[in-house]
C-alpha cells in the first residue's frame, strides 16, 4: 500500500513536469507546425541561468522567476530571429517539411554546446527550496518528499494561469484564433506574427519552468534535459499534439506509467515503457487520448 501511494504521488509529480514540457511543445506545434526540438536547449540555457542566480543570491525563487523570464525571452528570440526568417526563405517544396526539424535539432546542439562552453560539462546541483527527504507514514518513509508536493502545486498553478489566459482574455483569444486559422485572425485585425512570437515566449516559459523544477531531484549538465524533451514529446503525442488538456493528460499518464513500471517491475524499463505507451497510442488512437471527433481543441 505504501508502495502504491508513493508510486502514485511520485508519478504525479514526475508527470506534472512532463506536462509542462509537453505543453510547451504543443503550443509551438499548433501555432507554427514545428516540433521544437530546441525546446530542451532553450530550457537548459534558462536552467543554467537559474543555477547561476541561485549560486550568487542563494534564492531559489529569484532563480525561478529569472528562469521564466529568460525562457520566455529565448523563445521569442528563437521565433523572431530564427524560425521566421527560415520560413521566409524556405517557402515551398519538400524542404518545407524537413527544414524546421533540422533547424531546431541543430539549434538544440548549438545551445547545448554554448552551455557546455560557458559552464563546463561537469554535473551541477540546484538545491531544492524545500526538503527532498520523504514524508514518513507510520514507520515507513515514502520516497514522496515535500519538494515533490511543491512541484505538483506549482504546476497546478501554472496550468490554471495558462488556462485562464487562453480561455478568458483577449490575448488568449488572439493566440487561439492565430493557431486555428491565421488568415481569419489576420482579417479580424490580429497581428498574427507578433502573437505567434508571444506563443513561442509562453512555450519557452513553460519549458523553463519544467527545466528548473526537474533539476533539484537530479543534476544539471548540458544534456540533462534531453530526457525531459523525449518524455514531453511522447506526452504531447499521447495527448494528440493539438490540445493543452491532452498535453497535461499525456504527461500525467506517462509520469504514472513510468513510475509504476520502475517501482513494480524494473527501473531499466523506464524508456521502453514510454515508447510502448507512445506506440500503443499511435496504433490505437493516433489523434490522441483526449481528442474527440474533432482534431483541434483549445
Amino acid at each position, binding site marked *: 500500500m505504501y508502495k502504491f501511494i508513493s508510486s502514485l504521488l511520485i508519478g504525479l509529480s514526475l508527470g506534472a513536469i512532463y506536462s509542462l514540457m509537453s505543453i510547451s511543445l504543443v503550443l509551438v506545434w499548433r501555432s507554427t507546425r514545428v516540433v521544437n526540438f530546441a525546446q530542451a536547449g532553450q530550457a537548459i540555457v534558462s536552467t543554467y541561468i537559474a543555477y547561476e542566480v541561485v549560486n550568487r543570491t542563494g534564492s531559489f525563487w529569484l532563480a525561478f522567476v529569472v528562469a521564466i523570464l529568460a525562457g520566455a525571452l529565448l523563445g521569442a528570440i528563437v521565433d523572431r530571429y530564427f524560425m521566421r526568417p527560415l520560413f521566409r526563405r524556405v517557402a515551398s517544396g519538400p524542404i518545407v517539411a524537413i527544414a524546421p526539424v533540422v533547424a531546431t535539432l541543430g539549434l538544440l546542439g548549438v545551445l547545448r554546446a554554448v552551455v557546455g562552453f560557458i559552464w563546463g560539462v561537469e554535473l551541477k546541483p540546484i538545491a531544492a527550496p524545500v526538503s527532498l527527504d520523504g514524508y514518513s507514514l507510520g514507520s515507513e518513509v515514502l520516497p514522496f518528499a515535500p519538494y515533490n508536493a511543491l512541484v505538483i502545486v506549482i504546476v497546478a498553478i501554472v496550468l490554471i494561469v495558462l488556462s485562464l489566459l487562453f480561455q478568458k482574455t*483577449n490575448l488568449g*483569444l488572439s493566440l487561439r*484564433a492565430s493557431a*486555428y486559422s491565421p488568415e481569419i485572425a*489576420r*482579417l*479580424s485585425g*490580429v497581428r498574427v506574427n507578433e502573437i505567434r512570437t508571444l506563443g513561442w515566449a509562453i512555450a519557452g516559459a513553460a519549458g523553463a519552468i519544467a527545466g528548473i523544477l526537474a533539476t533539484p531531484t537530479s543534476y544539471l549538465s548540458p544534456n540533462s534535459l534531453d530526457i525531459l524533451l523525449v518524455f514531453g514529446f511522447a506526452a504531447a503525442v499521447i495527448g494528440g499534439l493539438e490540445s493543452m488538456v491532452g498535453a497535461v493528460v499525456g504527461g500525467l499518464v506517462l509520469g504514472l506509467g513510468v513510475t509504476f513500471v520502475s517501482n513494480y517491475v524494473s527501473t531499466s524499463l523506464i524508456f521502453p515503457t514510454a515508447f510502448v505507451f507512445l506506440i500503443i497510442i499511435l496504433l490505437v488512437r493516433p489523434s490522441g487520448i483526449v481528442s474527440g471527433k*474533432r482534431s483541434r*481543441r483549445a
Partner: protein
Amino acid sequence: MSLVVTNLSVDHGAIRAISGVSFTVESGKIAAVIGSNGAGKTTLLRTLSGLKSASHGSAQWNEHDLFSVKPEFNVRHGIAHVGEGKSVIAELSVEENLHLGAIWRKDKKEMKSTQLDVIELFPILGERIKQRADTLSGGERQMLAIGRALMSKPQLLLLDEPSLGLAPLVVEQIFQTIKSLRDQMALTVVLVEQNALGALEIADTGIALNLGKVVVQGSAQSLLNDPAVRAAYLGY
C-alpha cells in the same frame, strides 16, 4: 467617398490572375463581381484586403491606400473581408468568433453594443451564442462570418461567395441581409458571386470578369439586360 481600383494586375507566380482591372464603387452601393470559376474574383478580393500583393495598379478607399498596409491594419481602416466558404473559426464559440471581429477595438462598451446589433440582425446567433461554430448549419456559419466582419464596424465590406453551398431559401435571406446592410447602415459592399442573378438583383453596379479581365461593367440593371451577360452568366 468611394472605392477606386485602378489598372490592377495580380500574378500567381508566372500566371496573371488579374489583368488591368479598373472600377469604382460609390459609397453606400453594392457592386456585384460576377464570373465563373477561375475568373479572378477571389484573387481580386484577397488583393483588396491585403492577403495577396498586387503586381501593378492601386486601390484607394477614400484617402486610404489599401496596398500600403497588411490586412490586419486594413481592418482598422474600416475594410472587412469575409473569405470564401463560411469564414468562421470552427473551434471557437459563436461568441468568441464575434469577439474576434472586434478584438483590435479598444472600446469594450462599443463592442458590446455592436454585438447586440449583430444579434438583432441575426437572432439565431444569439440563440447559439455559447455553441462551438462547427455545430452551426451552413447558413448560420455564413451569418456568423458576416457578423464577425460587422463587429469591426466596417465601412467597406468585401464578401466572397456568401451563397456558396447554401439552400436557395437561405441564399435569399443572406442576399436580403446584404441589401439591408446597404440600406440601413450605408455600408459599401463588394460582392463576389457565382450566383450572378441573385447578386445583380440586389446590386447597384455589376462587373463581369473573365480570365482576370473585365468583360463588361455598368449598372446592375444594364448587366441584367445585356444579352451577352445573360447568355454567359445568367443562363437564359
